[in-house]
């Protein structure tokens, strides 16, 4: 379509730009509205939500959050679970990714095919038996229980396999001639050369772990184990009667802040991971 670098805008371009701007405003409107609501006193909002951008404003909703300890404990849980998942996923994915990318062993084709099949299995198809298994192992309402299931998702392995194959073979061959063991090659040559890809996978995993809904919903049933996502959902259930729309919105904004900061700094990585590109 647009060849991109022309500075002259014809009518068609202007119309498209207008459409896109309108859409963008449409996209931002709910978020801006909600942020505005979080700064309004609850009593006002009980009656009327129209005066979002006019007085009165208040910071009470936010101070209330800081006063009430729940959000912070939820956030802590989210941090622990997301960090744990990220670190462990990186370890498993890089090891397996290298194994599939550049080493040869009996049964490699079969194992890779099996992992490929696993990519097609959706979370929901196995959540019931998974829950039963974890219940039998008494792993519900534990950090391990929250972290474990996603470790098995093959996406990370595929990402790392693809990226490891981008390292020129000659470098590994040189290392072999330099008497480096396979594991040493992995640690001292491959890993340092693929840090961007690991960062991409790490950030992507963190984000998804942070936002996870279904599994924590059924596994973390005790309020003290709620992650931020689940805790916020629990607050939502009948908000017509809750402490107030303003307070609820402030919690939403609060919950969105960490991922927003992540997005601000790591947008490129998140996009790369999602579109399957690396580095």
């Amino acid at each position, binding site marked *: 379509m647009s060849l991109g670098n022309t500075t002259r805008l014809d009518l068609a371009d202007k119309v498209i730009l207008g459409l896109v701007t309108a859409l963008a405003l449409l996209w931002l409107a709910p978020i801006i509205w909600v942020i505005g609501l979080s700064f309004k006193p609850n009593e006002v909002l009980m009656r009327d939500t129209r005066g979002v951008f006019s007085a009165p404003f208040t910071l009470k909703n936010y101070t209330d959050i800081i006063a009430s300890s729940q959000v912070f404990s939820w956030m802590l849980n989210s941090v622990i679970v997301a960090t744990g998942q990220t670190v462990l996923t990186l370890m498993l994915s890089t090891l397996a990714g290298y194994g599939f990318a550049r080493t040869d062993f009996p049964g490699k084709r079969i194992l890779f095919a099996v992992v490929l099949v696993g990519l097609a299995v959706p979370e929901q198809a196995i959540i019931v038996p998974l829950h039963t298994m974890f219940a039998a192992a008494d792993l519900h309402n534990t950090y391990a229980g929250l972290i474990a299931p996603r470790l098995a998702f093959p996406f990370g392995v595929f990402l790392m396999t693809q990226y490891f194959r981008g390292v*020129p073979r*000659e*470098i590994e*061959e*040189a*290392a*072999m*001639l*330099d*008497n*480096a*063991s396979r594991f*040493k090659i992995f640690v*001292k*040559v491959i890993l*340092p*050369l693929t840090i961007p890809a690991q960062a991409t996978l790490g950030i992507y995993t963190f984000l998804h772990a942070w936002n996870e809904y279904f599994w924590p919903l059924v596994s973390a049933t005790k309020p003290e184990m709620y992650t931020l996502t689940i805790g916020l959902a629990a607050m939502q259930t009948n908000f017509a009667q809750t402490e107030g729309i303003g307070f609820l919105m402030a919690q939403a904004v609060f919950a969105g802040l960490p991922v927003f900061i992540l997005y601000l700094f790591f947008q490129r990585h998140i996009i790369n991971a999602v579109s399957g590109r690396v580095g």
Partner: protein
Amino acid sequence: MAGISLQRVSKRFGQVEAVSDLSLEIGSGEFAVFLGPSGCGKTTLLRMIAGLEDVSDGEIRIGGERVDHLAPGQRGVAMVFQHYALYPHMSVHDNMAFGLKNIGVARDEIARKVAAAVKMLEIEPLLQRKPTQLSGGQKQRVAIGRAIVKEPKAFLFDEPLSNLDAALRSRTRIELARLHQQVKSTMVFVTHDQVEAMTLATRIIVMNKGKIEQVGTPMDVYRRPATKFVATFVGTPAMNVLAGVLSEVGSMAMVTLKDGSPIRTSIKAAGLGGVREVEIGIRAEHVGSKGSIPATVEVVERLGDRSLVYGRLGDGTVVTFEEAGDIGLAIGDPVLLSFSPEHVHIFDAHGRAHQTA
């Protein structure tokens, strides 16, 4: 340093045979060059010596010891890769020290060896730089330095000059020759460029389709090629090849070209078997322009020190001939060519070449 012995070595990739039943002895201290077109198996052979490819059949010995079951690092060879294969995230110093560290050499020993290699290659100022900060020629030297510190039994070079521009290539060629003098080690060098082979080798191994065509010194390979393939592959411009019919004149072979011109040779007719249809070969520098074979000038290339002329014979064959300096011929001029009898090669139906005894 040590010699390399290949006995009946073969390599198959699935159904394709890249190297066929090849045997070769490379003497200790030799500079052996594997020369051939792409796909001839020369790189595969080098990689088999290095241990980067398994041997399908046969044995490889280095310094008398059988190595084809050993891991690459345990064979006592060092390799300089086509694209250098330096570790991008390590400094020049660490690139060179990596191999020694892996086998547990003491730190001061490593420092000593690295310092010696660095001095020889004149790359001291580069020690702390990373490969991305180096030019092609500098990377080349670091790659060589990495090989030198290992003090290997043999150096293996995989087309190391193909990535360099023309000027750098000739300079590096000279440095490699000098390196061989200094280090006095066995060197195995793979290339498709026959100029590199001619200038660097103590012996050239010409390969084609997984087999050896000829092994010999550069001059031998040039003057007395064993097969038609070697004759046409080595030498620029390529040797002229013309078809003709064999007969005998006074116990010497004589070939009559398609246009009827008789070509006398100094080759004994007896050794040629009973073949009638043969081809002859003659290099451009052995074709004269004051003879009796009629041709028309098609193209003249003036190179400064010499001129190359492409003349078309009556039967359509193009013959290249060479004259020193400038030549007073223009396109379309008629010219009478002569072939120096002592320098005519005859190629029989099996592709074997026969020369004056």
